[in-house]
């Protein structure tokens, strides 16, 4: 099996930090880039831009709805805005403004929600975001991405600055393993196939990509060749990659740090249903809020570890084998 990651995975920076660094670079390159935050600039790392470009940085106070509409107005006036808060506040408190001022009005606004998922840890469910990807995907015209590591986060932030149209990108609080070598190129809607196994496919996003890579290595020791796909863009979804993986491996597991219904799991299942139905299993947060704890404790308690992916692989391979037997009858 050919792997595209370096084993063992080395810890890199948090995707939110990669966001802040990239913003500061974009500020140098494009005088129309403006950045907004709602009193979380230290946590979201937008402060890195704010320090360098005071006149183009607007920390609006604790007023997410206002921030999201101002971002749309700035876009209407020819600027390239990036607006940030925690994913939960940005999406939930700014949803009407994302819907009307950005999706409906078709303005070119970039939203980056940090502290996505449950891995922000101790602050608990009011700050954790388990539904942001699904809500963003429900907005007509939005591009929605969830990068796995620092290289992909930086590249997708750059892609957002160049893309015309509303974008939502989730970044995370904890440091995450490096998946990609510097210089790797990314486009929205073009998934990355990270290993070429043909027994089963694991489609993952965000922090779960690293977990999927580790699970694939463990599975390989047991003689199972896993194809790992980084589905960094939930919308537009790379349906071709899903179809090819379904046809060539015959079984799919989707892993995400998010409710899996609705979530990436349901999107992938729809694409597979339309193009090439195969047995599927889902690793994601069930219909519940999480709680306080360390990221590791929470990922374990809410079903987001290598063991959970391995369990899903076993189940889906069982169904695949059963299907083959039934087909042979």
């Amino acid at each position, binding site marked *: 099996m050919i792997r595209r990651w370096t084993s063992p995975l080395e810890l890199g920076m948090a995707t939110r930090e990669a966001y802040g660094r990239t913003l500061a670079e974009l500020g140098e390159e494009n005088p129309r880039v*403006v950045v907004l935050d709602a009193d979380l600039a230290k946590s979201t790392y937008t402060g890195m831009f704010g320090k360098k470009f005071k*006149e*183009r940085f*607007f920390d*609006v*106070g604790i*007023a997410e*709805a*206002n921030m*999201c*509409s*101002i*971002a*749309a*107005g*700035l*876009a*209407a*006036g*020819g*600027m390239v*805005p990036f607006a940030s808060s925690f994913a939960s506040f940005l999406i939930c408190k700014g949803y*009407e*403004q994302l819907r*009307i*001022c950005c999706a*409906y*009005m*078709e303005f070119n606004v970039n939203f980056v929600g940090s502290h996505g998922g449950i891995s922000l840890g101790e602050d608990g469910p009011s700050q954790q975001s388990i539904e942001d990807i699904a809500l963003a995907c429900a907005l007509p015209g939005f591009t929605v991405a969830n990068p796995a590591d620092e290289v992909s986060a930086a590249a997708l932030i750059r892609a957002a600055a160049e893309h015309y149209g509303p974008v939502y990108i989730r970044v995370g609080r904890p440091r995450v393993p490096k998946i990609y070598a510097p210089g790797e190129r990314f486009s929205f809607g073009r998934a990355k196939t990270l290993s070429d196994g043909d027994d089963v496919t694991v489609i993952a996003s965000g922090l779960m990509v690293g977990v999927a890579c580790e699970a694939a290595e463990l599975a390989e020791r047991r003689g199972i060749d896993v194809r790992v796909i980084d589905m960094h863009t939930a919308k537009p979804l790379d349906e071709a990659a899903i179809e090819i993986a379904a046809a060539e491996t015959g079984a799919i597991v989707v892993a995400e740090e998010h409710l899996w219904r609705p979530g990436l799991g349901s999107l992938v299942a729809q694409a597979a249903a339309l193009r090439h139905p195969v047995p599927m299993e889902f690793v994601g947060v069930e219909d519940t809020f999480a709680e306080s704890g360390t990221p590791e404790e929470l990922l374990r308690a809410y079903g987001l570890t290598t063991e959970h992916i391995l369990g899903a692989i076993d189940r889906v391979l069982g169904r695949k084998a059963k299907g083959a037997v039934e087909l042979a009858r």
Partner: protein
Amino acid sequence: MDAKKIDVTEVARRARNIRRLVIEMLAAAGSGHPGGSLSAADIVASLYFGVMRHRPSEPYWEERDRFILSKGHACPVLYAALAEAGYITHDLLTSLRRFGSPLQGHPDRRKLGLIEASTGSLGIGLSMGIGLALAARLRGSPSRTYVLLGDGECEEGQIWEAAMYAPHLKLGNLCAIIDFNRLQLDAGIGELTDLEPLAAKWRAFNWNVLEIDGHDYGQIADAFGRAASVADKPTVIVASTVKGKGVSYMENQLKFHGSVPDKQDIAKALAELTGGAR
């Protein structure tokens, strides 16, 4: 129409035309919001025929002043002004609210690119105005941004988030106008929640506050002039108006917030508006 001295006779003539067009459009559509369109007619006429720098021959001129009709349900008044100014044809007006028409039930910039902001969901226009005013400042543009708010709209929380922030930015190029007609959909202002004292609230939020009669062309022109002369504060013009202004049986009548009169009453309204009986 670059900046010039306001000709109140011309504004009055345009306002009369706009009112007549509003009634004709609503009659053709059979539904819509006459009350708040008529109460805002004199303000909108003043903006399009005297106050704002804009070029009907060059609609997307980058340095144009921007107008956001945050109370989007009053869009007949905006469409009528756009027709009077020559941006769209008068013939188009009777397609209001029809399937396929650029004149949607609430302003929609996907269908009519001249619309600066697609409104209809109340409370968002002032924040967008802040964004436009900021963008103008960053571009070094003289463009000013005008946002027309409903009084009932000021019950939305986002209005006060924006109200708190614009003075902090010293946005002298932003001017809000409140069409204070004292009626909302379900009741009179103050019957549902405590909006008053409205002007005092804006003063407390550090705005340059001007209180005027929103049907007095001289006062309207003067207020916009004073707004433009204050460089370091946004201005809000609290304009006392009459809902349904210009049609005797509609004035101050709750029922004409969102309903259109029958044929006979339409004829009566048009007779009043064309007879010069203002």
